Each structure stands twice: as structure tokens, then as C-alpha cells.
């Protein structure tokens, strides 16, 4: 097919048209539909909406602070004297030093016992060696 004939056929497509019934029905439905608000109006609306959101978030933050603050206050006022004294620095220092001493004693006892066990084992080994040599 040569190009002239091809272009003529393509131009013939211009005569294709929608049916009248579809046209009437579609037109009617579309013109009854609402338009979406313009973006400019949308931005204005968004600005006020964001103000409302900001106010709501601020109020929520304040309420949260009040709630946590109340809980913390109640916790401190309701603690027992025993717990409070445990925070005394001089008491803490005494406890820590005695704790260190207890650790050192414990370590010494461990080393002492370990040494005795090791020397017992070495004695056993040397006795076995002597017995083998005598054979």
C-alpha cells in the first residue's frame, strides 16, 4: 500500500463519531456532577485545617505533660522512708566499701581452695610417676 492511499485511509477515520444516544446520556451525567474545589481554595482550607490540627496537638501535649507530671509527683510522695534513706550518699558509700571487702574475701577464699586442689592433684601425679619408675 503506498503512502498516499495510507494517508487517505487515515484521514477517513475522521468520520468516526460517537453515537447520539451515548452523547446525550454522557453529557447529562457530566453536567449534573459537582466540580472539585479549585486548588487555591483548597490551600486556604488546608491552612485553617492545619491550624486546627496544630491546636489539637498542642493541647494533647499539654495534657500528656500534666498526666506524667502528676504520676511522677505521686510516685515521689508515696515512697517509703526506707527507700528514701537508701539514697543517702554516706550510707551508699558504706555499703559499697563493705561490698568490695566481701568481694575480696570471697576471691581470696576461692584462690585458697583452688590452690589446695591443685597441689593435691600434683601430689597424685608425682606418686604415680614414682610408681612407674620403680616398675
Amino acid at each position, binding site marked *: *500500500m*503506498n*503512502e498516499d492511499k*495510507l*494517508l487517505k*485511509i*487515515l*484521514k*477517513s*477515520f*475522521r*468520520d*468516526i*463519531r*460517537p453515537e447520539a444516544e*451515548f*452523547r446525550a446520556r*454522557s*453529557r447529562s*451525567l*457530566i*453536567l449534573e*456532577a*459537582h*466540580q*472539585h*474545589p*479549585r*486548588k487555591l481554595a483548597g490551600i486556604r482550607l488546608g491552612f485553617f485545617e492545619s491550624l486546627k490540627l496544630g491546636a489539637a496537638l498542642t493541647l494533647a501535649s499539654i495534657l500528656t505533660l500534666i498526666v506524667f507530671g502528676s504520676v511522677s509527683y505521686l510516685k515521689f510522695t508515696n515512697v517509703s522512708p526506707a527507700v528514701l534513706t537508701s539514697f543517702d550518699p554516706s550510707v551508699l558509700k558504706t555499703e559499697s566499701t563493705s561490698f568490695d571487702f566481701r568481694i575480696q574475701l570471697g576471691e581470696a577464699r576461692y584462690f585458697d581452695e583452688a590452690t589446695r586442689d591443685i597441689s593435691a592433684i600434683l601430689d597424685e601425679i608425682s606418686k604415680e610417676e614414682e610408681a612407674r619408675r620403680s616398675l
Partner: protein
Amino acid sequence: MLDNENNLIKQAQKGEVGSFGHLYDHYLPPIFRYVFLKVGNKQDAEDLTHEVFLSAWQNLGDYRPQGHPFSSWLYQIAHNRVIDHYRTKKSHLDLEMVDESFVRLASTTERDLDLAMDMGKVMVAIKKLKEDQQDVLLMRFVEDLSHKEIAEIIGKNEGAVRLIQHRALAELRESLGSKEE
């Protein structure tokens, strides 16, 4: 372009239904034709065309002339809508067959049936081309749009559009020529 088109658009943007009605009446045939030749099926073409104009009416507030004709904006909506249609369409078009509604519509032009059949053959051959080639051929030779307008609609530059047109015509001639042999 319609006479007094800019004024009609402004009125329609203010919600003037009659003004948009004039725009609808003027642009419905070319938009329907473009969509129909792309999807090859009358029912789908009617549905998609309706969606194009509904979207245009509802979002008319977003249209800004700025050197872009209203027709280009409509074609852009139609172009995008057809792409979405291809993405969601589950069934595949039979590329060897032309929908009977096509032949019926082509025949109602009061031309002889031979021409309608030729149109059918060309339609089948066009459907085998790449999407951008189809778009350029239909917009250029059926809808008589300029290369500049076509470039805006399909998102390419004018040089690319001319190249696509050249290759599309060559492939179409080869495809139809081999069938005739």
C-alpha cells in the same frame, strides 16, 4: 479551537454548566475517536471518553492556559486514561481481529464497505505498532494536531515526534504491503 473558547473556559471554571456543555459538544468527537482507535472497542471507548470529560469538568479549576491549548489538556487526560485502561484490562485484544463495532462505525460514514474493510486492515496494522507510534499517527493524521501539540501530550520533544512519525509510517507501509502480497 472554538470561537471565544477562553471565555467559555473561564465561565465553565466558575461553574457555568452551559459553557462546559459547548466545550463538550465541540471536543467529544475527536476525543472519542482517539480513544476508540486506541482501544478498538466501542463500549470501552464510550466509558473512557465519559471518564475523560467527567475528569475535565470536575478538575477544570486546575487548568491554566499558559500557552497550552485546552484541546491538548483534554488529549493528555485521554492519553493517560487509555494507559490506565491497558494496565487494568485483564483480557488481551486480539490483534488480528477488528471489533465489529469498528466496522459498523466506519460504515456509517456513508462510504462503501470496501473502504470500511481497508480501514479495518489499517486499524489492525496500527494496533501492532508501539504505543507512541500509534499516538503520533492518530494525532497527526486523524486529528490533525501539530508536532508541537503532540509532543506536549505524549511528553516528548518535537524532534522525537517527527522521528516516531517517520518510523511509524514506514512500519505501517511494510506491514500492509506484506499483507497485500
